[in-house]
């Protein structure tokens, strides 16, 4: 059977034509779309098309209690949910004047860094798959699963672990947990040479990634890019170091930087960051047993918890960049306004449009994945 009206599809005679990248194009990350106009192989204009994942989070949060929202926030970025929980909790703690016990802060850092490793492994796989190399995806996602197992043991959820709550964390570490974290770190560290051999020294991949989607430091600053994408242009800015939260100022880690600003530099920055996360986790695993104390500050009855009037802007460094929450309380039991500044909101829309314009069609997916765009953060 012929599709109805198939003869009616007629394009005006032109050297230019239009292609939808997405939302079910495999070259797109998540449920997102990019309309591109092509001249031959070259993209002459591009427009991001978001909103496929819009759930109206900010509206939903206004209708739920402070504590209920902790179940909503991780959904805003699926591959890297822990920073969302922590950032929202930090905001509430700042509003309510809660002092988070030190042990809870260390456990939170452990969660954050585990989540960062998981997210980076996911991104490596996706990035390699855009160029047709599927093996890193299979390996990376399987290795990421071991981290999800750790999360599951701690919180009961593989992907969404509503584990960080205002005031601290939900429950203490199980017996022998740090040993298992340490084992998993050993395993992932032992896998890194394999990834290097397969992906990071693979000359075909290097050739595909070098010079793709170049962004200078001026452009990156101008467009408000943050996170690994900014560091790949040579600016060593990391919220963890320059605007420290939790106990990051007590930890030793480097902020890896690359100069080139292309897809390859971004990939290298993520790889170096993964190693730094391992380094941080080693420190946390070594220090955590010494730190005793409560894991949660006492909070009032969460079902009738009125936070004082005020507003706060909290930032954390997620695997995609600077994640921020602007939370306003009018003294009620529900937030008056929550504004989520997803890091991808910058590099998945304007920056993507700019970088894709002038690129070739085979590099579009590579650019998007090397920017590590997370569409739900854009749509919210």
């Amino acid at each position: 059977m012929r599709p109805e009206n198939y003869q009616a599809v007629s394009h005006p005679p032109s050297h230019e034509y239009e292609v939808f990248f997405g939302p079910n194009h495999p070259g797109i990350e998540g449920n997102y779309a990019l309309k591109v106009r092509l001249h031959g192989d070259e993209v002459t204009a591009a427009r991001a098309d978001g909103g496929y994942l819009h759930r109206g989070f900010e509206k939903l949060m206004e209708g739920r209690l402070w504590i209920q929202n902790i179940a909503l926030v991780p959904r805003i970025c699926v591959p890297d949910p822990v920073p969302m929980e922590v950032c929202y909790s930090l905001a509430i703690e700042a509003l309510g004047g809660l002092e988070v016990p030190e042990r809870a802060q260390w456990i939170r850092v452990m969660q954050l860094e585990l989540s960062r490793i998981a997210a980076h492994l996911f991104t490596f796989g996706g990035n390699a798959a855009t160029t047709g190399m599927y093996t890193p995806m299979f390996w990376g996602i399987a290795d990421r699963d071991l981290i999800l197992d750790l999360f599951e043991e701690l919180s009961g959820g593989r992907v969404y672990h509503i584990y960080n709550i205002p005031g601290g964390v939900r429950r203490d570490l199980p017996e022998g947990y740090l040993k298992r974290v340490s084992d998993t770190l050993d395993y992932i560290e032992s896998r890194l040479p394999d990834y290097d051999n397969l992906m990071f020294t693979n000359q075909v991949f290097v050739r595909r990634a070098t010079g793709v989607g170049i962004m200078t430091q001026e452009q990156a600053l101008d467009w408000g890019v943050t996170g690994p994408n900014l560091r790949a242009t040579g600016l060593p800015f990391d919220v963890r170091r320059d605007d420290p939260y939790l106990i990051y100022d007590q930890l030793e880690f480097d902020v890896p930087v690359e100069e080139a600003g292309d897809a390859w530099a971004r990939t290298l920055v993520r790889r170096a960051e993964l190693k730094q996360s391992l380094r941080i986790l080693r420190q946390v695993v070594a220090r955590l047993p010494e730190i005793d104390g409560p894991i949660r500050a006492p909070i009032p009855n969460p079902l009738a918890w009125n936070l004082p009037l005020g507003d706060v802007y909290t930032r954390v460094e997620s695997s995609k960049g600077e994640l921020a929450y602007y939370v306003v309380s009018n003294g009620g039991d529900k937030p008056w306004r929550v504004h989520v500044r997803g890091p991808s909101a910058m590099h998945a829309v304007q920056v993507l449009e700019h970088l894709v314009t002038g690129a070739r069609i085979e590099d579009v997916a590579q650019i998007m994945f090397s920017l590590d765009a997370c569409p739900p953060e854009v749509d919210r």
Partner: protein
Amino acid sequence: MTPTDAPGHDVTTTLDFLLQEVDGLRTRWVAPRRLRVDLPAETLPALLELLKGRAGYVHLSAISCVDWPDDGQFELVYHTWSYELNVLVMAHIRIPRDPGVYLSIYDLYRPAAFFERDIHEMFGLWFEGSPDMGKFILTEWEGPPPMRKEFDGEAWVMEQFGWQEYRPEWLTEIEAKGGGISKRPEQLRGDKGEDGTA
């Protein structure tokens, strides 16, 4: 650029000194690296220009909009960050809810295009001079700007959608014996006026 710890005396004084150049400001340090500035709407471009030009505030972290229907105002909050001073300046302005028009700061900060379009979609504010005020997220939405306080999302949902029936036999049995949920969700919803029948 070097990592700075909590802002020392010099950073605070630098900023405080600099901000004296703009009239009508009220500044307050809310946290070690958070400076809150309240100012009249018309001086905001001057403040941002000053911050960007003289204190290295090149990074616009976000523009947040807060709806205050009781005051008849929208509050716009511009969060800017300096990679040199490592201090976040939050500039709060209030503009009248009606007609809800303000100036775009796109010529100063490009990320503003995204946030202004977002605020336009969600709150219905109009930014003069913003490059693209077309729909982005809510392309399929024809109702009022959903983030305004007067839009009741839940009531809209009740009107628009039906709900799946789920009452297995075991639950019916339990309910016959007086167990189960005392008040079913649709009754609760029905109290609000709509029962959401498909």
